[in-house]
Every structure is written in C-alpha cells, then in structure tokens.
C-alpha cells in the first residue's frame, strides 16, 4: 500500500528536505504513525498533546480537507494523495486569545483556575476568575494583581511566558 504525502517547506527538516514521501495506513492516524517511524518528530507537529489534529495545520486527502472526512479517523486507500499545509493565519489578536484558539491552556491562570479558557466566553472573565481565585477582582487594587494571583494560585506569575505558542507549533 503506498500513499504519497506532500510535505510543506516548514516540515521538510523532518524528511531530509524531501518534498514528498511515501507512507501506508488505513486511517490518517495510522499513516502519521507510519511516517513518524521513518521521519521522527513529524507526527508531533501535526497532532496536539490532547491527541487531536492541530487546529492550524491543514491536511487534505485527495484534495478534500480531512476535517470533513473524520479527521484522524479518515479512511485511506492505496494510491491516495495526502497534502499537508500549515494554515496561513495571524493578526493583531492577543496572546492569551491565540493560546485559547490553539486548543490548549498555555496560561498559568487557566491551569490554576481550572477554567476552560479554550473558548472565549461572553461572561465577564473577571467574574469567573473572581470565583475561581477567591479574590475580589471587581475593582482593580493598587497591590499588584499579579502578586495576589500568584499567592492564590501558587504559581510564579511575575514573568509572562513567551514560549508557549511557539512551543505549541514547533
């Protein structure tokens, strides 16, 4: 069984520069595991920690977006063509919101608060955080709010982590 897979420029470091590689598998998940056995690390760029397809990677089977074919469960046959393209996206959108879109809670606040910050909610985020942290966040205080939240969450919030979205996509 042979499936031709076209690799985008940014992932060719995993294939020794090759633009297309061959693989086998009955489903997309199986194909990616097969590719990873010969091109170690490739699968990690396409699948998130939670085991789903990365939100900003497009995979097409015979020119159809796999999101409409069952994503990782999409069925594959001998002779199929698979194309991988990193989504072209961006914008002025803020850091935390971008992390939320990436489908993972990269901010220490979301881990500490146990809130699902993957979808921005219309409810005042302050109200939700107030409840979770036990702090009165309705009025800004002169005390560094970060210090207060650090104490409540037990995390060091003094320095924002820049690494998160890049790490997610690296």
């Amino acid at each position, binding site marked *: 069984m042979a499936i031709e897979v076209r690799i985008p420029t940014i992932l060719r470091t995993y294939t020794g520069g090759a633009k297309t590689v061959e693989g086998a598998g009955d489903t997309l998940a199986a194909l990616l595991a097969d590719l990873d056995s010969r091109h170690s690390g490739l699968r990690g760029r396409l699948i998130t920690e939670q085991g789903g397809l990365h939100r900003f990677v497009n995979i097409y089977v015979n020119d159809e977006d796999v999101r409409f074919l069952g994503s990782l469960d999409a069925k594959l046959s001998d002779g199929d063509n698979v194309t991988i393209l990193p989504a*072209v996206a*961006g914008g*002025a959108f803020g850091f935390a919101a*971008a992390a939320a879109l990436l489908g993972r809670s990269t901010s220490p606040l979301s881990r500490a608060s146990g809130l699902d910050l993957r979808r921005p909610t219309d409810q005042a985020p302050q109200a939700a955080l107030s409840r979770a942290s036990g702090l009165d966040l309705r009025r800004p205080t002169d005390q560094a709010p970060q210090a207060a939240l650090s104490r409540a969450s037990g995390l060091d919030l003094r320095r924002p982590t820049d690494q998160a*979205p890049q790490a997610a996509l690296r």
Partner: protein
Amino acid sequence: MLSIDRSIIDAIIAHARRDHPDEACGVVAGPVGSDTPVRHIPMDNAARSMTFYEFDSMEQLRVWREMDDRDEEPVVIYHSHTATEAYPSRTDISFAGEPGAHYLLVSTREPDGEEIRSYRIVDGVVTEEPVQIVEPNVDPHAVQSYKFGQSPTTVDYECSPGR
C-alpha cells in the same frame, strides 16, 4: 529587502481598504527562487475578524496547487492590521509557516494613509526589511535630474560673465 511593483502595492492597499475594519489577507506569487512578487492573489479572510485572519483551507489548497503547477512560490504573504501598527503580533510570529516569504503588513488604522512594512519571520525571529516600491515608468538606474550643468562625468560651475 522587498522589491515590489507600485501596481501590486496599490492593489494590496485597495484590498485592505475594501475589507477594513476586517483584516485583509493575501499572497503575491512569483517564480520559484526569483524573490520577485509578480501575481497578486487576494485571499478571503475565513475568520472575518477585525483582529484575526486565516486563509480558507480549500482556497489555500487551490492557490498552493496553482502556484505549484506554475512553478511559483508565495513570495509575499500580506495582511492588514486595522487598529494597530504594521508590526507582526505574537500571533503573526507563531503562525508564520513560510520561512522563505516576505511578510508584508499594512495598517489601515489611519483613514488618510497606510503604513506598509515588510518582515522576514524565520524560526520565531522577526527581521524588518526595507520596502522598495518600483515605479513602472522610471528606470531606477537613471539619474533623475541634473543641477548646474552636472553630468555623471563632468561638473560645471555656473560662471557669470567677466569672471
């Protein structure tokens, strides 16, 4: 440095103004390895947002295939910021997936003019580069004007009679 025709820049600005206040986005394709933007391809912003853009996945496949068929590559990937400066945001940097492209940013936050700046974004590192807009009617190597009878090889100082 990004060298780009005036007509293409004008088309990009017009696209950004048309979509304002939503972010506009698109590609300018050019022959592989030429680093010359030739064919302007405005793309649909599937996110239709004032602060986020994303190419529609099927349109992106169609355009990328077409470029491949024509031996082209995306030389410029552009988008607009409608309320902030023409500088790549963290989101822009994280999502930059074409290391060979020039990332062109247009800011339409002012109604009477646009900021146009260009960057290379490779492995999370942003490097700004100058934008050279090539005017169609002018030979960039020609000397535009002479003063006081100067030419490339001689200089004449103005002399009054009697001196």
